């Protein structure tokens, strides 16, 4: 008879190097799924949020409904949001993405709108005086000036999305959340801790990358922030 191996996996310890080396593939797959879900959601959210924010800026009457509806959506807890989308999308990754898009929409629309509104009237008039039409004014003057506020929203939306992907475990598409969920059911401490830490690491790295991108996109703000 062979004695059971006496390693950290057998002892079910929280921190376990053997877990990292033996389950590398599972972990990589989960991280990739996690990144895909979060990235696709935030990217789609951004694509939808831009026209909404521009419309809310352009037509005063549109601002109320746009902000109202997105705030309403944001108030609904994530688990309920995924569940409400179940009849539409079934148990699929699309469901998780759709739910996360609706969340990031709120943060992005609010911040982009705030950025557009903060463009000084003098700047706008100067651009008009230089012969800028409404489209060129928006693309070449207002949008770039709204980048810092928009990026702040994008960072919050990304960090939230990375964290909320875990709830997708309820439909089996939660990236690292799947590992946390199955680890909970099998009382597998190393798996739960490793997946949780990886989630936070992804969120922090994404936040830092976006901060770097913002610095590159807005060279004129450098040196201003003391």
């Amino acid at each position: 008879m062979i004695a059971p191996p006496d390693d950290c996996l057998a002892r079910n310890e929280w921190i376990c190097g053997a877990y990292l080396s033996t389950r590398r593939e599972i972990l990589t797959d989960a991280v990739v799924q996690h990144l895909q879900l979060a990235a696709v959601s935030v990217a789609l959210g951004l694509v939808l949020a831009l026209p909404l924010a521009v419309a809310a800026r352009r037509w005063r009457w549109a601002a109320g409904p746009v902000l109202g509806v997105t705030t309403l959506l944001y108030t609904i807890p994530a688990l309920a949001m995924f569940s409400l989308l179940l009849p539409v999308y079934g148990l699929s990754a699309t469901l998780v993405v759709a739910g996360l898009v609706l969340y990031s929409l709120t943060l992005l629309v609010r911040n982009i709108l705030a950025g557009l509104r903060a463009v000084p009237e003098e700047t706008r008039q100067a651009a008009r005086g230089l012969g800028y039409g409404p489209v060129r004014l928006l693309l070449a003057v207002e949008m770039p000036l709204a980048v810092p506020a928009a990026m702040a929203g994008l960072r919050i939306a990304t960090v939230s999305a990375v964290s909320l992907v875990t709830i997708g475990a309820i439909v089996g598409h939660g990236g690292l959340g799947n590992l946390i969920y199955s680890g909970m059911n099998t009382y597998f401490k190393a798996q739960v801790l490793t997946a949780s830490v990886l989630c936070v690491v992804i969120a922090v790295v994404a936040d830092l990358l976006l901060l770097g991108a913002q610095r590159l996109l807005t060279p004129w703000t450098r040196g201003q922030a003391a």
Partner: protein
Amino acid sequence: MTTLADAWSWLTTSAHWSGENGIGHRLAEHLFLTVVCLAVSCAIALPVALVLGHLGKGGALAVNLSNVGRAVPTFAVLVLLLLSPIGSYGQWPTIIALVLFAMPPLLTNAYVGMRGVDPDVVRAARGMGMTGRQTLTLVEVPLALPLILTGVRIAAVQLVATATVAALAGGGGLGRIITAGFNLASTPQVVAGACLVAVLALLVEGVFEGVQRLAPAGGRGSGP
């Protein structure tokens, strides 16, 4: 549309409202968790934030906490607590996780509110001979009240959401109706539970918005 009709008929079946797994009991659990944890987190976070804001110290901590709170998944913390030794004490993992996630918005908003009080007003209060404690309670807190209440509102909505996720980790509350629906592969039950949670969250938000409107006029700064 049939799913919505099915969900509605699930909701209106009286058998689903009674018993330990019924809507009535789950709603009571959810409200109990939300109210108790809101009270506990306010009792811990608000004094700390008000004193830090009054002294003007610990600003980086107060602001960064809400970023940390956003980056750490609620579900991960719930499961970690469940597998830790605390996990064998009934609802305690849920309560601890709820309090942890309610604190960042409370701390950040109360702190920012306190720092946003016009320094001239504070100096005037000092000049009139007010002590530090009097300045805090009679001048700064009333002026910071709108933001403090915003923090409480965000925390309350966050609590409703976290209490829902707690069901994934075996906690009580309305989330259990959703998870039970998933286990039974009953879409009407899942949708019905989700509707209950969404309505509860929107109601909590609405109630706090009402409270904020009713807050003493002095708290809203110098009117028009």
